[in-house]
């Protein structure tokens, strides 16, 4: 699916540019955005190194284990495939916590670590496992409860009440996260029935 989407975005863009006379912009955008992507990856190094370092210490010190014990009942229902006490649980929880507080930078490395652990559980296969998709669904639906970036922008533009959107954001987030889990379950059971 992603192969098709990836190719189609570029194909449609280039074909459209042929008829629309925007080839100059496309040509420029190709190299500019490749550059931008490299800058982004290099920029990620600092966050990844720092957070994976700290999280490794947390793991060795048994903090991730403590975290997963604390929230086990809730998370177990969401990820029935993951054995209790598995380190994946700790990383999932750290990712969710970081997301809730709008710390996107801290959330990504923990999310990747969680995915890595889940991959080990699925026997190093290159196919997404059930828990990986549930985890992804939660992340894409956004778990942000405090949208720090948006609040900062609203402050910059002199909003009378920069944080008045926190309430509506929380309601919309809860609706979309609950729906994401339900949709995830729907497709999961559909894929089982097919077999």
């Amino acid at each position, binding site marked *: 699916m*992603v192969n098709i989407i*990836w190719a189609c975005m570029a194909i449609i863009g280039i074909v*459209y540019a042929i008829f629309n006379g925007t080839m100059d912009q496309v040509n420029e955008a190709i190299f500019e955005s490749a550059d931008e992507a490299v800058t982004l990856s290099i920029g990620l190094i600092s966050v990844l190194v720092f*957070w994976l*370092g700290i999280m490794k*210490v947390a793991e060795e010190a048994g903090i991730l284990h403590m975290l997963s014990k604390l929230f086990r009942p809730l998370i177990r229902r969401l990820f029935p495939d993951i054995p209790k006490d598995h380190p994946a649980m700790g990383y999932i929880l750290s990712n969710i916590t970081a997301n809730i507080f709008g710390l996107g930078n801290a959330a990504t490395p923990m999310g*990747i670590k969680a*995915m890595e652990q889940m991959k080990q559980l699925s026997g190093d296969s290159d196919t997404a496992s059930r828990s990986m998709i549930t985890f992804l669904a939660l992340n894409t639906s956004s778990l942000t409860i405090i949208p720090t970036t948006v609040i900062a922008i609203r402050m910059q533009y002199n909003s009378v009440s920069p944080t008045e*959107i926190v309430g509506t954001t929380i309601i919309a987030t809860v609706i979309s996260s609950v729906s994401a889990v339900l949709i995830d379950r729907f497709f999961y059971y559909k894929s089982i029935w097919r077999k």
Partner: protein
Amino acid sequence: MGIITSVSTWLIPVFILLVLVVATWKRVPAYETFVEGGKEGVKMAFTLLPFLVGMIVSISILRSSGALEAFINLISPFLVAVGIPPDIIPLALVRPISGNAALGMTTELIDSHGPDSFIGRLASTMQGSTDTTLYILTVYFGAIGIKKMRYALKVGLLADLIGILASIIVVTIVFG
């Protein structure tokens, strides 16, 4: 709100403090373990690089050619008919594809309509309650080498759709 802002600023330093105190208490070689974990981070960033270059270039071809805008103009009448404010449509369509573009659009909407206008509040809520599905998919699956993503993309995009509709409905009820 003061409390929420301070929680956000305090959270990371206090977490680090806790980790280091517990690690020292349990005689974990903290610095060596940190370096060991950090090495993984370097590797990960380089693993991610080709995935990000590929995805971001493809998205920017689509945008710079004008095709994305044309598509948005094409389907806008239908969305307006369903009651979705026309100003918000480009943001709603771009949000799952590109986080930077969406943030730019939100800033632009807040700038031109004002942060306390209906559109400004709606853009803010939408920005906070949805996430860049394609980016998350690329980064998370790319980093661990997942090639067959099964129904993941469908779930992600449908969740975005619901998040966007939920934002419109909630903001209309609360501020409308």
